[in-house]
């Protein structure tokens, strides 16, 4: 009996979708546009998080400048101490000579390097910290170490990092906010489509009620119609996004090279899952609210 009812509901939903084709297509189109926007939002969010990951790796490395009068043994001891710290991934000792070589090898320092007499650079300990959250703590302990150069202890720029992290948090929040607004708009669109479908089928609904159809027998086809609308829209949006993703990333990389945006084909499958689930849920929720409001037994 459940199967028979499901067959009836699917049939009714399909018929209703085609009978009100103009309204159905308008709804599909609107939700497609919204899901495309939502998809772009997810793609941009994903690209940004990839860029941010790269940034995190960079800023989670700090250099501790060693004062010239620190005995070498003391530096080795401190290097061993840091290496034993569970928060630290690796520690590398860079001697004064190596530091100068590094400095000179950078083309940006070409003119400055010619004017240098002797070696004004400090030897340093390059510390790779596992988590960005621990960099500040490692920096604080390094500054306590007696062998550190008191005039320029480390290259840690806490303020800059904090600002970047804050900015990324705000951007994430704004993306989420935009997603919520888009979702609400699509629910309202589905609700209105269902209202039109209910209006077109009011005679049928009246007859159904009079012959003793249960509330869910009457409502079921409308909810299925909503799910169908959402799934069709999600499929179209997904197809367009999948086709457009790679060319847009390539174009972006060509134009704005300094942002290391990358094409991630694996993300398409997670985007497909998100969009299809979102489409079906939006359709179901919008039509559920719609039928609860407009179909009363």
């Amino acid at each position, binding site marked *: *009996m459940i199967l*028979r*009812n499901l067959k*009836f509901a699917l049939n009714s939903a399909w018929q209703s979708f085609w009978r009100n084709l103009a309204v159905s297509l308008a709804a599909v189109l609107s939700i497609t546009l919204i899901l495309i926007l939502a998809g772009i939002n997810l793609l941009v969010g994903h690209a940004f998080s990839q860029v941010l990951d790269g940034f995190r790796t960079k800023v989670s490395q700090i250099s501790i400048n060693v004062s010239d009068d620190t005995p070498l043994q003391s530096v080795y001891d401190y290097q061993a101490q840091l290496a034993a710290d569970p928060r630290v991934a690796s520690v590398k000792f860079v001697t004064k000579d190596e530091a100068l070589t590094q400095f000179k090898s950078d083309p940006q320092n070409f003119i400055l390097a010619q004017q240098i007499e002797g070696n004004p650079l400090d030897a340093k300990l390059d510390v790779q910290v596992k988590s960005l959250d621990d960099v500040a703590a490692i920096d604080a302990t390094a500054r306590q170490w007696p062998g550190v150069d008191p005039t320029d202890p480390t290259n840690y720029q806490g303020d800059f990092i904090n600002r970047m992290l804050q900015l990324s948090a705000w951007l994430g929040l704004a993306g989420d906010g935009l997603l919520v607004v888009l979702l609400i708009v699509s629910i309202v669109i589905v609700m209105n489509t269902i209202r039109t479908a209910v209006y077109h089928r009011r*005679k*049928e609904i*009246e*007859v*159904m*009620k*009079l*012959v*003793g*159809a*249960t*509330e869910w*027998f009457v409502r079921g086809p409308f909810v299925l119609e909503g799910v169908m609308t959402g799934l069709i829209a999600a499929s179209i949006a997904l197809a367009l996004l999948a086709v457009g993703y790679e060319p847009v990333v390539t174009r972006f990389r060509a134009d704005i090279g300094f942002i290391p945006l990358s094409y991630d084909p694996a993300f398409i499958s997670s985007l497909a899952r998100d969009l299809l689930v979102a489409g079906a849920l939006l359709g179901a929720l919008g039509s559920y609210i719609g039928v609860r409001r407009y179909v009363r*037994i």
Partner: protein
Amino acid sequence: MLLTPDFATRPVISFQHVHKTYPTGTEALRDINLEVPEGDFLFLVGPSGAGKSTLVRLLIREEKPSKGKIFVDGVELGRMKRRRLPHYRRKVGLVFQDFKLLPNLTVYENIAFALRVLGASDHQVRDRVAEALDTVSLYGKESTYPANLSGGEQQRVAIARALVHAPRFIIADEPTGNLDPATAWEIMQLFLRINARGATVVMATHNREIVDLLRRRVIAIDAGQIARDDRSGRYHDDFAKSEVRA
């Protein structure tokens, strides 16, 4: 063979001090007391706006009484949970003046519709629809759409739909209102046949000729109250006069 309603047994429909006032303040029914035994054939008569349709709407639980109680088959309609409502309506067959057929469905599909919503199998649908078509003498019109049928034929389809799920009650609101006298008479014969099989029939009507000819129970409603309850009554001339005056 006609079944004689047993007035001594517990009534299947009972109105106890029923009042109905609409939110607009219109008092449609006042202190209605009415008992209908199983198998009864009852005419509700009265001028337009007297309250007949409100009584029918209360009976199919499209409205709840403002005061008083209505029992059908031992269940109080006013207290019935909404989810029980479909099950109640399956005991009732409804026939309306405007037929309420679905124009995009054939005769067969219209009748089958009442069974499909109950989740009947294709096999059950085939058998029962054939039986109903036979009862209303519409064999051969299965594939016709309502628009291609006469008024009388459309009403017969509506009756077939009302009785296809073998209801215990038939409630009809002006079922002959849109029909010529000869066709109206044919439709009445159908109702009599359904009643003879045991279904209780409650019919609101303006058709004086039919009421006077059949001499069944007549409840006359005037200004929201029961003015008369005759076991084998006539339409009564008073209403005709008041209708003319109005």
